[in-house]
């Protein structure tokens, strides 16, 4: 099919290039028509009055027809009710007359009734939906929908998709012919779009009017459990301020996920509403953006960039940024990849923002596969099935054809799918390469293993064998965000949310190396604060990534992974020594010696006077406690310690970086520092955090706009748009 379209496709692609060159070289630019359009909207008499009239006439007609039908039904019902006693009486007498007839006659009479007359043939269950993996591999058959599901799905990928709210109607293939032959104005789909396209919104449910669109766009942001409606988020509590005298160490696992950002964007820009606070993970908002950190120049898998400046939302506080940049691996040096696409094709994926988008994303990735890479496709719905055995990446057409054949339907046995996908990955295991299962789902597992705990244990066990798991979340309405984040963490992978082809491109093309190639695993950060400089601190975000201080040196404790070229940023709000720390109020301890350290228990006294501090502080595994007279050490604000393991090793290495506060003002920092701070403040505002200080949407806008810097993909501009939308929604 694609071959027959080749000449016009090329011509049109060339036409597109011509358009782009006119703009890039010729200086042609789209005009700003905003004022003109908005003025016209205000001024233009609403021609839809006539349309409304027509619509009202139609309504009146249907109301009349409805009333007529109801009246007719009532009359028929009344008549039947009146006649019923007579009918019953006749039946009774007939029954009495026939009482003496032989049983054989009755049986004979029954046997004359067609067997199917009183029964609906029951559609096959989902178990028959997918042949066994053996059958699929040998016969290369398509995934066949169950008979009972057929009406709910398009018959093939080439068929017209069902009309969905929010999705424009597809072009009618006959459109051009009709234009020549028919003398009346036509629309792309006459049944869905009226003469100017206006009617489509109403009829397809794009507008907020209730109708058939409601089922798709129901307003259920937060669900209640597996298999039940609504998106599911774990409850998140913002990290509180901690007093350094009580908690000199802060330990957490890195997080390179970006799903929360894409999900928040979906709420704000697509659904025009504020996200639920638990959907906002501030660290994922910050880490969505690439920052211009220099990559490592030696064998270390990542470089660190640590900086401190004035905190923009609380002037007396300081803001510390810890930035990590993973080693960049050029695409042509990317190790061979053994990938298993584990695709959810259950009924809940039958939505334009799920399976079709999933297929597009996977096709993008398939086109980037090389001869040395391998791709297998496992699908699951009511049961699991192997759609494509492990295939060399050079056979792209075969991979893409397999993706094109996928259709959605049935329940969701995700647990069984994961088992099969790991088995296929193990069978094609590459000793020197990347072995990864890419799970693409809305996470609505409702058959088989549905408990998050069981799934997590299963994935954790498989990850130890060298096959990692990444999760790509799709869709809304029943997005199981919490489960997907957790299994990707335990599967040594990352979790991204795909809400558009653009996002698919970002995750699967622009950041392919980071998505596929892990350069360090179990990356932990521990910050030791110097009580002479710091009274208290608060880690912004990473609320569900905190570790105990002793976990830092414990190599059995799992932590996050960093991919090739990934950037990771963490921010600490610092309360300088001498300032009050807003720690929770706790009664004074009764049995502790006065003046002694009560490490592990919160101080009720707030900030200590630095002069009262002992000469030596117990600081965990700090190599050299600060000594009086060691000027440089005593001047340090903090020391950042990092632990990581090579992807194929079980023993960690440690790096240490001290930081001295030179009193830098916020305005003296670079764009990246300022932009990350603006994103953090935005996240706190969306969460309505009690730690947001003086942050306002206007302040965030001011900082983000001035610090957008080089923004080739428009991601930072998009954040600014999100801030504006959130501000409008809040007002």
């Amino acid at each position, binding site marked *: 099919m694609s071959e027959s379209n080749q000449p*016009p*496709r090329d011509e*049109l692609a*060339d*036409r*597109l*290039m*011509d*358009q*782009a*060159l006119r703009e*890039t*070289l*010729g*200086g*042609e630019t*789209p*005009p*700003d*028509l905003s004022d003109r*359009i*908005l003025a016209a909207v205000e001024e*233009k008499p*609403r021609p839809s009055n006539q349309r409304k009239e027509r619509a009202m006439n139609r309504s009146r007609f249907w109301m009349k027809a409805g009333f007529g039908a109801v009246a007719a039904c009532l009359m028929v019902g009344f008549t039947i009710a009146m006649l019923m006693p007579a009918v019953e009486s006749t039946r009774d007498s007939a029954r009495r007359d026939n009482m003496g007839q032989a049983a054989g006659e009755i049986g004979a009479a029954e046997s004359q009734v067609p067997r199917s007359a009183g029964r609906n043939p029951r559609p096959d269950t989902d178990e028959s939906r997918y042949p066994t993996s053996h059958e699929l591999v040998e016969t290369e058959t398509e995934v066949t929908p169950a008979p009972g599901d057929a009406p709910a799905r398009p018959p093939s990928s080439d068929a017209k998709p069902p009309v969905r709210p*929010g*999705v*424009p109607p597809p*072009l009618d293939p006959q*459109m*051009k012919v009709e*234009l*020549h032959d028919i003398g009346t104005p*036509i*629309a*792309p789909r006459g049944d869905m*779009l009226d*003469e*100017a*396209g*206006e009617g*489509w*919104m109403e009829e397809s449910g*794009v*507008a907020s009017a209730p109708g058939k669109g409601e089922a798709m766009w129901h307003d259920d942001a937060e669900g209640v459990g597996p298999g039940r409606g609504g998106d599911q988020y774990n409850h998140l509590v913002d990290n509180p301020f901690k007093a350094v005298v009580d908690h000199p160490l802060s330990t957490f696992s890195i997080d390179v996920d970006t799903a929360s950002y894409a999900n928040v964007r*979906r709420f704000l*820009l*697509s659904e*025009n509403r504020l996200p639920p606070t638990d959907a906002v993970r501030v660290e994922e908002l910050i880490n969505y953006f690439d920052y211009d950190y220099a990559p490592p120049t030696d064998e270390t898998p990542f470089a660190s960039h640590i900086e401190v400046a004035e905190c923009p939302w609380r002037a007396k506080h300081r803001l510390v940024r810890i930035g990590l940049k993973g080693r960049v691996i050029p695409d042509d040096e990317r190790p061979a990849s053994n990938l298993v696409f584990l695709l959810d094709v259950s009924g809940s994926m039958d939505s*334009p*923002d799920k399976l079709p988008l999933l297929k597009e994303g996977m096709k*993008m990735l398939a*086109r980037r596969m090389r001869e040395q890479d391998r791709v297998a496709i496992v699908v699951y719905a009511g049961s699991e099935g192997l759609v494509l055995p492990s295939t060399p990446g050079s056979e792209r057409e075969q991979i893409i054809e397999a993706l094109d054949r996928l259709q959605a339907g049935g329940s969701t046995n995700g647990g069984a799918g994961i088992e099969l996908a790991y088995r296929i990955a193990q069978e094609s295991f590459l000793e020197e390469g990347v072995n990864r299962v890419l799970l693409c789902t809305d996470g609505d597992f409702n058959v088989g293993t549905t408990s998050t705990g069981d799934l997590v244990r299963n994935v954790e066990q498989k990850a130890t064998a060298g096959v990692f798991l990444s999760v790509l979340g799709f869709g809304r309405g029943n997005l199981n965000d919490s489960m997907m984040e957790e299994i990707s963490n335990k599967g040594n992978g990352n979790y991204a949310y795909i809400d558009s*082809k*653009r996002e698919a*491109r970002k995750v699967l*093309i622009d950041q392919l190396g980071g998505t596929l190639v892990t350069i360090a695993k179990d990356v932990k950060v521990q910050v030791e604060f110097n009580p002479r400089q710091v009274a208290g601190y608060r880690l912004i975000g990473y609320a569900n990534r905190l570790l105990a201080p002793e976990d830092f040196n414990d190599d059995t404790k799992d932590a996050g992974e960093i991919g090739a070229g990934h950037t990771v940023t963490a921010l600490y709000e610092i309360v300088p020594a001498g300032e009050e720390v807003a720690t929770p109020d706790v009664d004074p301890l009764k049995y502790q010696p006065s003046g002694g350290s009560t490490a592990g228990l919160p101080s009720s006294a707030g900030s200590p006077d630095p002069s009262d501090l002992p000469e030596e502080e117990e600081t965990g595994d700090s190599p050299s406690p600060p000594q009086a007279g060691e000027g440089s050490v005593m001047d340090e604000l903090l020391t950042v310690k990092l632990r990581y393991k090579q992807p194929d090793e079980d023993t960690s290495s440690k790096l240490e970086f001290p930081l001295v506060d030179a009193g830098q003002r916020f305005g003296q920092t670079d764009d990246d520092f300022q932009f990350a701070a603006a994103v953090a403040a935005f996240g706190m505002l969306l969460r309505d955090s009690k730690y947001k200080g003086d942050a306002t949407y206007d302040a965030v806008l001011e900082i983000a706009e001035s610090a957008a810097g080089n923004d*080739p993909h*428009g991601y930072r501009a998009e954040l600014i*748009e999100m801030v*504006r939308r959130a501000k409008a929604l809040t007002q």
Partner: protein
Amino acid sequence: MADLVRTHQAGVWRYLRFLGCDAGEADDFTQETFLVVLRDGFEQRSKAQTAAYLRTVARNRLLMSRRRRKCRPAEVDLEAAEAVWAEVAGDDGLDGYLAALAECLQSAIAPRARQALELQYRERASRAAIAAELDLAVEGVKTLLRRARDALRQCVERKIGR
């Protein structure tokens, strides 16, 4: 409302130019497209869905106008054009494509080819004028320009993952 216009107007305008409208027509049809959409209280969905819907309305306005003027609808097969736009230009109104093109102009073609393109698009020079400037035959200019555009197309589509 203003956000909708601000976000999508450039994409709609470029799309109409791609479909064969001149700049003035593209202005008018862009305005009409948004008027049609806004006057009925459009509720924005995802950026991609909104962009695709606006393209459908814009295309429809163009078709109706062409038909009213009793001319052939367009020299472009609109269905195929939409498919190519959706596939290559994506949902960002050509922004990603243009960004990739800016990079490819520096890396994917020889300086001589870039000069020829600049003369054609920036200076509006005829092929004969370009031939004279570059000391080439007119046919050679045609070949040079075609190859340069092909190389740019491949480079851009590779960069944006098509």
